[in-house]
């Protein structure tokens, strides 16, 4: 069976995809991983370090420094008000 081509928006050539900067408040994190698992661009991973409560907070994965598109999903879904993004381009 022939491979089905991936769907591609018709205006993909003209739309400029933004780049986002991730901001984290490590001490608020309770380690639920909602942001890490459901980030549409898979930008985040768990930190190596733990915060004072013993939770591993989200950090940007190696090589994903410019992968955030500032969609704001992590900010909305974070139960702890511990992460947000801002557009840098």
């Amino acid at each position, binding site marked *: 069976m022939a491979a089905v081509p991936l769907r591609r928006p018709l205006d993909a050539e003209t739309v400029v995809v933004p780049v986002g900067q991730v901001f984290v*408040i490590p001490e608020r994190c309770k380690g*639920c991983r*909602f942001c890490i*698992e*459901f980030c549409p661009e898979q930008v985040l991973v768990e930190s190596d370090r733990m915060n004072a409560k013993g*939770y591993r907070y989200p950090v940007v994965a190696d090589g994903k*420094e410019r992968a955030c598109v500032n969609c704001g999903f992590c900010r909305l*879904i974070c*139960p702890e*008000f511990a992460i947000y993004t801002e557009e840098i381009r």
Partner: protein
Amino acid sequence: MSGEIYVQAHPVDHLVRADRLPHIWCPGCGLGSATACFASAMVDSGLPLDKQVVVSGIGCTGRVAGYLNVDSFHTTHGRAIPFAIGLKLANPELQVTVFSGDGDMFAIGGNHFLHAARRNVDLNVVCINNFNYGMTGGQFGPTTPLGARTTTTPHGNAEPPFNLVHVASSLGAVFVARWTVLHIRQLHRSMLRALDKRGFRFIEVLAPCPVGFGKSNDIGEGLDEMWFYRRQCVIDPETDLAQATIEMKHDSRIVLGDFVDIERPVFRPSGWEE
């Protein structure tokens, strides 16, 4: 460039009582997500924050009012809706949102829900449904699925649950929606639609309660329940609400959507001048 930047404050800190953070909710609980989403919706609605009021009852969701930096009332168990009716009728300028849980709003407060919806009182009602009484340690409630294990149904729940969106719609609620905290963008949009309408508006929000429900019901942690939502939910605004029951089984679907958006005369007390 580097990855993340560490900071001390969040852009919505002015919308929450940041001096009360961290909140009391467990890791993996969906209540914080629903609260963050509603805080954003309050601002994005463009309605003046000074005129927005949040009323909660008792339970884990009952604590939502206390974390939102608007006029907020944490009332008695089940009585958030009638308290909110008093606020709204005595000052019609207020945009009053009732934010409470499934047990508070549909067991002990069920009668108030029925009559407020029937009257079409101008209230925005958000019900967080986590399928159990979380605050008291995971007892069954009016939305606990048949067969589910809780601390007071150790042999399995023998009672069929309410189908909340069907209940609300049958009573004439002018806006009825169901989302999960995983569907946070759709929930945000739905909250904005509700805030933009008048009359009795109802949004059911499914949220994980890993401690009280997930772990004892083959679902697992909060994150596992979010994956469960990802696998089992279908969005179908045209669905037959009578069939939109929630079983929380690995082979059953959960239907989501903005289901009802109608107009109906908004409650005015008898004798009020036009």
